[in-house]
């Protein structure tokens, strides 16, 4: 069995002060409303295709614009079921 190694999260100035820092920029909202299939991966692909001029870029949203998305997912689900079994 391999030796037990305690792995601790390192702050950027701990232990390796000479290493260059990676940085996160300020969080932005990815979407303003929910729709089926929406995901971080789709957001990335959309951005990549927009950078290649293959599609329109996504609009910029306020940082809190996605706050309602988790609740909207439930409404989307109910809508899909209604459509599946609509008479």
């Amino acid at each position, binding site marked *: 069995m391999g030796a*037990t190694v305690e792995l601790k999260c390192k702050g950027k100035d701990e232990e390796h002060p000479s290493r260059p*820092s990676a940085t996160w*920029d300020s969080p932005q909202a990815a979407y303003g409303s929910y729709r*089926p299939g929406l995901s971080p991966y789709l957001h990335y692909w959309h951005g990549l295709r927009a950078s290649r001029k293959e599609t329109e870029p996504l609009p910029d949203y306020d940082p809190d614009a*996605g706050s309602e998305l988790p609740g909207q997912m439930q409404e989307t689900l109910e809508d899909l079921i209604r459509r599946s079994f609509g008479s």
Partner: protein
Amino acid sequence: MIAQAMISAFEQFLDDPAGILPADAINPAPQEFDDSDLTDPALGYLSDDALPDPESGCIIAIIDDAIPFAHETLRLKNGHSRVASIWVQDARHQPGGTGADLPSGIELRGTAIDEWLTSAASGHIPGEDSIYRQSGTVDMGRPTTPSAAYAYGHGAAVAALAAGFSPEDPSARNHPVIAVNLPAKITEDSMGTLAPVSILASMLFIITRARRLCRFIEKRRGLMAGSVRLPVVVNLSFGLTAGARDGSSLLEQFMDAVSVSGSDDLGPIHFVLPTGNHRLSRLHGHLNPGQDLGWRLPPDDRTITGLEVWGPVREGLPDNKLQITLTPPGMAGATTAFSAPWQFTVMHDATGQEIARAYYTPRYLGNDQWREGVTVIVMPTCPERLHEPYAPAGEWRIGISESSVDAEYQIGVQRDEVIRGFHREARQSWLHDPEYRIHDEAGRLIETDAQNGGAPRVLRRGTMNAYAGGKHSLRAGAVDGQRMHPSPYCSLLHDDAGGDCLAVVDRALTQAGMLVRGRNSGSFGVMSGTSMAAPQLTKWLARQLAQGQPVNDRAAIRALAVTQSATPFPTPVLPHSDKFPPF
């Protein structure tokens, strides 16, 4: 009303920011669905001589690629097709054809397939291959991977296992088939992250066409409207290796809801999925705040690399949001600063180049229950185009910030491999913990966490397909025919089981794979994986339902399998034959 529902539901499918569909596949003017499918012979779902028994039929539905709809195992002895409808989502749209209500591609129905088969049988067209080409399913001149042209593609094997019968088998007629050919780009994307919309659209299509098939049977047999309610078993041999795995994704919730809600004019719907193939791939682990794990990214990966972090179920969304610390190789790490749902943030290296992104994606589970999640996307370690961002290969580290709520967090790495036959220069990343052991002292694979010993943060338990975390979907695992024990690759559910039911896929521990049918009648190949187990469970369940077995939920289905299994415990292995049928 049905037509309007279909069109409006597919609006999301048409909004295709990932470019899944070729431009010429789009239906520019979807039309409303009317009742002409019940009266126009050209729009018929099945020949009268292929209609199932209204009382004991069971529809088998398949969502995959390369569906061999002209294959002999999907025909009856009288030559008629059992395929009532197939939607080829990325075929070039044909104005005026069947499926005018669909947003893309073409729909082929049973009576049209019968015409192709008759033409082939009479020598007017040269065989099965020409059926796929002339119908538009295979078009070598288009810029998409023609997996339907492969000698033995994934969907060909899956469809034949799920719905293939000997034409001589009298029970075949009771199993009409509805199928969806997914776009090549969905199969190509081994991460599976582009698939949910296409799969949801496929499920809506299957439900809608299954209901119409029931009405069609009523009409042709002169039965009372609403009296035919065939059950449906849907096979989805696709999956993800990262996700919440608790049934909370839209796709899982939809499958659960459809499984229990049903409809007045359709029988029960069951979904069957593979348990997954990544038990030993080191893609799953767990961490507490303040801990971190190695995450090794190979060089020359021209695709993004994904990882998801999911917290425990908790009441309310905490003020101190889940934050992750990401440490690229050779750099000091940095911690996110999320403050609201669905925020994303971009990581830059010291030169200002984008190397990764993170998204905060909490899920509301109802009743004030929440699960926090973060998705990390690292840029390709080799850019697809020169000017595009790329990230360093090597050992990254993923950690949970000490400021996050004290709990255990699940870590999942997305699959990122090249699918045979597809162009996609992917390379699989994996989690690294020195305490995780791959082999024992004798050189054998260590198959369980208990055998590993110690307390590694990389786990084998809970490696199940992230589409299969719902309460009602059935999970099929793979065993080898000698040990009748789950194959080492077969993922594990949260309770260490290899699935709800198991099926023989591999011949032996040292002989992976089983004989499977190819696209053309008489062709065959060898394939492995739980994708081959799921269709075996699908077919078995469809036969049980056709025989009137009163099994409505996962527990009842498993209990029935136990009664028929020669290896019923700890998880029932479905009855199987070592013989490959000769037709």
